[in-house]
């Protein structure tokens, strides 16, 4: 089998998994003990209003029929209407998703920019103090409770040093005085497109703390992975040959060795996207970031079950997609994987 056929078979498998995910989510959400219809109409509703809502939300049909409807709606990208906001869930999620992705991408850039050099240096200085320091650093990264770490950063940089804003995506005054059009939903890009540099720098300032908080986990992950890959590569013969030719050390480490260590590490990088996506849920709550996590938390607190289901499905689809990409990368770079 060739790579294309492998891709297609993985794609089919991913679709099957997504169907399974959707079914599990649907089942779980249908054993919610509280009554969604009562929530829909609000606290002062009459009995008949609740009945009407029950019919409108199709809660009076058998479960399998409802699952059929649910799937049909899903194919039209209709996730239902949020009980809390009374807006289409897909609209809410689309808005929240770009905010989450912007945070995620910046955090991943920090993680890659920090994790790869740290991992390379740790491998080069194997078993010396730098290696151990980076081990402690990396393990601390994956051990930090993000919601706590975020608060500590807020204390340090907002309360005590007073250099960075506490929360939100942009300062309300800045967005009022220097408004910009939301074309892409990514504020960094939108403000640049509008050549609105005041807003641009304000957006950056708001991004720093949540991005650092979110990056802690992938930094640890990538550092450890790059280190172990580098340690293996550095024992290869061609590296010894390069040393014998007196090629500058930096060129050997970051040129020759890293090139071969980076491919397997890419898998970790891609995987860390998936983990960071969910990590963002907690970080967003701390920093009042208007993304998927904050939306989900509010939905859970108010028993807004279409929204909860919607977020779970969208996040799981992203997760399955990332894993699909990881599989492809792995198959491309590791010839031992049989197509």
């Amino acid at each position, binding site marked *: 089998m060739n790579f294309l056929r492998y891709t297609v078979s993985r794609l089919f498998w991913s679709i099957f998994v997504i169907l399974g995910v959707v079914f599990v989510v649907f089942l779980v959400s249908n054993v919610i003990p509280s009554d969604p219809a009562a929530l829909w109409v609000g606290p002062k509703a009459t009995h008949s209003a609740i009945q009407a809502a029950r019919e409108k939300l199709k809660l009076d049909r058998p479960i399998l029929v409802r699952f059929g409807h649910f799937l049909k709606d899903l194919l039209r990208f209709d996730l239902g209407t949020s009980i809390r906001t009374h807006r289409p869930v897909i609209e809410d999620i689309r808005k929240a998703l770009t905010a989450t992705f912007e945070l995620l991408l910046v955090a991943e850039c920090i993680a890659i920019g920090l994790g790869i050099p740290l991992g390379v240096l740790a491998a080069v200085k194997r078993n010396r103090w730098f290696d151990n320091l980076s081990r402690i650093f990396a393990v601390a990264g994956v051990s930090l409770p993000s*919601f706590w770490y975020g608060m500590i950063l807020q*204390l340090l940089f907002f309360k005590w040093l007073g250099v960075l804003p506490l929360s939100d995506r942009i300062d309300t005054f800045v967005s009022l005085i220097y408004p910009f059009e939301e074309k892409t939903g990514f504020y960094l890009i939108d403000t640049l497109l509008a050549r609105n540099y005041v807003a641009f720098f304000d957006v950056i300032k708001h991004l720093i703390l949540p991005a650092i908080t979110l990056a802690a986990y992938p930094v640890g992950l990538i550092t*450890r992975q790059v280190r172990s890959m580098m340690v293996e590569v550095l024992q290869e013969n061609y590296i010894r040959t390069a040393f014998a030719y007196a090629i500058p050390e930096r060129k050997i480490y970051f040129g020759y060795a890293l090139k071969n260590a980076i491919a397997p590490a890419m898998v970790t990088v891609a995987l860390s996207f*998936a*983990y960071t996506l969910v990590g963002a849920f*907690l970080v967003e709550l701390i920093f009042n970031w208007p993304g998927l996590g904050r939306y989900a938390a509010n939905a859970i*607190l108010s028993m807004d079950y279409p929204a909860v289901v919607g977020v779970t499905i969208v996040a799981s689809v992203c997760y399955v997609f990332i894993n699909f990409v990881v599989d492809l990368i792995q198959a491309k770079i590791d010839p031992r994987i049989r197509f």
Partner: protein
Amino acid sequence: MKNRLARLSLTIVSTFVLLALIAPWIVPYRDQALGEPNVAERLLPPSLKHPFGTDHMGRDILSRMIYGARTSLFTAVSVVFLSALIGVPIGIAAGYAGGFLDNVLMRFTDVFLSFPPLLLALLIASTLGKGLFNAILALVITWWPWYARLVRSQALSIKSLAYVEAARAAGVSHFVIMFKHILPGCVAPLAVQCTMDMGSAILEAAALSFLGLGVQPPAPDWGLMISEGKAYFLNYWWVPTFPGVFMLLLVMAFNLLGDVFRELVDPRLRRRMLI
């Protein structure tokens, strides 16, 4: 140095276990630790009387932190133990039987593994309702597939070893082969996985508590203490800070221990990532 790190982590873990065991006898304010409010001493900064200060109900934070070790360790041990209890037999059965049963079981676990773990736990915990036991249950439901996967791959490689084939040729029953001959071979990687998962379990349970789905007030729990501190931390920094330090120390100790174990047992073992 590596050994020193391992020894240090082991010391930290045992200290916390000891603290959890003897908590009722050593905490300075036992009633407050269990939730008794003390409004006369609200939000006092750290002092000799209250080394880590008091919280928004005037309770001694140190006492509650020591009791919190109980909750954290209990949660972590239950999640890891129950997940292994479900995952190990399934994994061994799938790996040993192979063929159709293996396919069915693994496709089933694949669907579970396709969820972001914390997200599925969130969904389940929010449908089951608040509370520590529901949180543990939610985490177990999301975790057992990892153990099934790990054990299956071990079982797959062990079942083709000569001694297993010899046992089969001698007419030993499948059940005995699975649990007497294959299971012992899975113990080492399983132990590594469990050690590392202890840290993750503590973090995820704390995350659920933080979202209001896990331990309920006034019970002493680090995640809950951090969550309660969120409303006060800008002016009363000590409220969430110290419980978080305890949590970081314990989780780090478990992770370092797992990291060192892993290199001893099998450097190629893929690390299971949390959250």
